[in-house]
């Protein structure tokens, strides 16, 4: 094949708009690019001038999938700025909320967006005819995660009960007990779905490239809600050093910022978390990791899909343990921390489904935001996606253009990029 020109404009089955460009002449790659064409969102600008109690509600709108994670990261930044120390109960409830979101997001990605690649279907919709039982189970996993987010946060998307210092409302003990039972009941469904992915894992391309992985880490647990910054290359760093970890920069072909740290690029997300913290996973998640042959450090970006599934079952098991802890202690109705608004700067770091997220706010004496900086996981992955493509594409040149395109699309999709939105109208023809 002397000439290959691939231009995937607006890659499908990801959240948002990104393009893949590959030009090959006489077996030499002339151009390979991962272009992000999403318009700038300007959130940092319109946070300026807003009062502190609105920050989590505004920033949750950055994403319809990671809205709980954004709200929690925002609250942690505000609480750090104002010296607010929340209770243990609040932390436990927030951790369950974050688990709900992680489960919700991961099953959406693996179940609805990646599974069609494994079954060579164009989307999840034809799978309802060919793999009815699998789709039904995926829907069950999605449903539980949605309802869990609703219970913990007052609604499925864009949490309404989370506030600085605690919650406006919390679930009752009975609701937590019911949730625990539903979590126990979902484990076999979860096992079945993971087994199906394992049975079809050979459909994932074979590829690996050494890179740096960055995620929150802590000695206590599989870090999601809290921890310090961990790097597989450089060890641990305080959250406050996030700017020198991300080192954001701009490139001409993308509206999104790129990042790099110890190497030319790094990866964040479920695989990064696995690579840094796999010894802290729950027993079932560890069991499945073993079945997939997944060991830290794994350099195969396609294994991010598998790590997401491991995290689903980890979140289920850990939520059961967190609920037990809450019930053992007994739920306190008024457990919010009272605080005084004060000036200061605070940085929050939380692991959201797609990786490590930072919110950094500065407030004046009235608690009005004067400066905001947000570093989003997907942006931290763009550079790593590009570097992967540069190595992966030459390995594909003996395949048909269609296969090359599919493989490159699957690579981008493995990162679960979320760069977001679309339309919802019907288009129909009346039967004659």
């Amino acid at each position, binding site marked *: 094949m002397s000439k290959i020109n691939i231009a995937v404009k607006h890659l*499908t089955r990801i959240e948002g708009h990104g393009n893949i460009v590959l030009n090959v002449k006489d077996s030499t790659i002339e151009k390979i690019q991962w272009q992000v064409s999403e318009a700038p969102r300007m959130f940092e600008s319109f946070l300026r001038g807003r009062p502190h109690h609105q920050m989590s509600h505004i920033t949750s709108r950055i994403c319809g999938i990671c809205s709980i994670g954004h709200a929690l990261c925002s609250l942690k930044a505000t609480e750090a700025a104002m010296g607010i120390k929340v209770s243990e109960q609040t932390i436990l409830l927030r951790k369950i909320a974050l688990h709900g979101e992680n489960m919700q997001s991961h099953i959406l990605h693996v179940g609805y967006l990646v599974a069609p690649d494994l079954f060579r279907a164009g989307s999840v*919709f034809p799978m309802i005819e060919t793999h009815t039982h699998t789709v039904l189970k995926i829907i069950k996993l999605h449903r539980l995660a949605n309802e869990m987010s609703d219970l913990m946060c007052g609604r499925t998307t864009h949490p309404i009960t989370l506030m600085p210092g605690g919650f406006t409302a919390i679930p009752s003990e009975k609701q937590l007990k019911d949730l625990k039972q539903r979590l126990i009941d979902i484990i076999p469904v979860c096992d079945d779905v993971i087994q199906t992915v394992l049975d079809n894992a050979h459909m994932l391309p074979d590829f690996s490239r050494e890179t740096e992985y960055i995620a929150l880490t802590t000695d206590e647990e599989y870090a999601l809600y809290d921890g310090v910054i961990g790097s597989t290359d450089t060890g641990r760093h305080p959250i406050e050093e996030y700017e020198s970890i991300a080192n954001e920069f701009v490139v001409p072909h993308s509206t999104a910022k790129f990042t790099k740290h110890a190497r030319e690029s790094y990866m964040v997300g479920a695989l990064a978390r696995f690579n840094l913290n796999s010894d802290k996973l729950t027993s079932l998640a560890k069991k499945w990791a073993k079945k997939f042959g997944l060991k830290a450090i794994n350099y195969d970006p396609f294994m991010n899909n598998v790590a997401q599934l491991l995290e689903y079952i980890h979140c289920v098991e850990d939520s059961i343990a967190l609920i037990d802890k809450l019930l053992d202690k007994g739920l306190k109705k008024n457990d919010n921390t009272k605080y005084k608004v004060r000036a200061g700067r605070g940085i929050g770091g939380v692991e959201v489904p797609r990786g490590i997220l930072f919110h950094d706010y500065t407030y004046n004496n009235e608690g009005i935001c004067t400066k905001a900086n947000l570093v989003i996981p997907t942006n931290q992955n763009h550079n790593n996606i590009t570097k992967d493509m540069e190595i992966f594409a030459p390995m594909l040149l003996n395949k048909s253009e269609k296969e090359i395109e599919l493989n490159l699309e699957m690579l981008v999709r493995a990162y679960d990029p979320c760069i977001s939105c679309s339309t919802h*109208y*019907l288009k129909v*023809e009346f039967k004659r």
Partner: protein
Amino acid sequence: MMKKKNLAVIAVGNELMGDDGIGPAILNALSGESLPEGVDLIDGGTGGMSLLHVIKDYNRVIFIDSGDFGGVPGEIRVFTPKDVHSIKKMCRYSLHEVDLAEIIHISQKIGEAPGIMVIVAVQPRRIEINTSLSPEIIDAVPQAVKEVISQIKRIRVE
């Protein structure tokens, strides 16, 4: 298993995409009307696959949506899922994108669909980034509200 609820009117559409926002606009107008008890008004918005989890709880659902059926902008058609087949070419950009017909199909396939489903669709003029509706779409709102109310009366069980 939870007992299914009586009836929901579910609006589908993205208010940031011009006439795609007709569903939420009709729903908003309906909320000012006196409706019989046991009718839930739900903004399904851009929930995508999440609509599956909403409709499973109801025996009867009336969807309000923008629908390109080749009519004149603002034209209203009332039909059931079995009256039509979808010819929408999905971009598959993201899970926010919804073909209501496909959601209904999945729901039926997995045995969760409401027994009665009616779609009240308004032909859009333009679906593009815009926060306002076209004039003929705004003019169609009162008639669409009347249609929905008459459908509620027709399918509702006391």
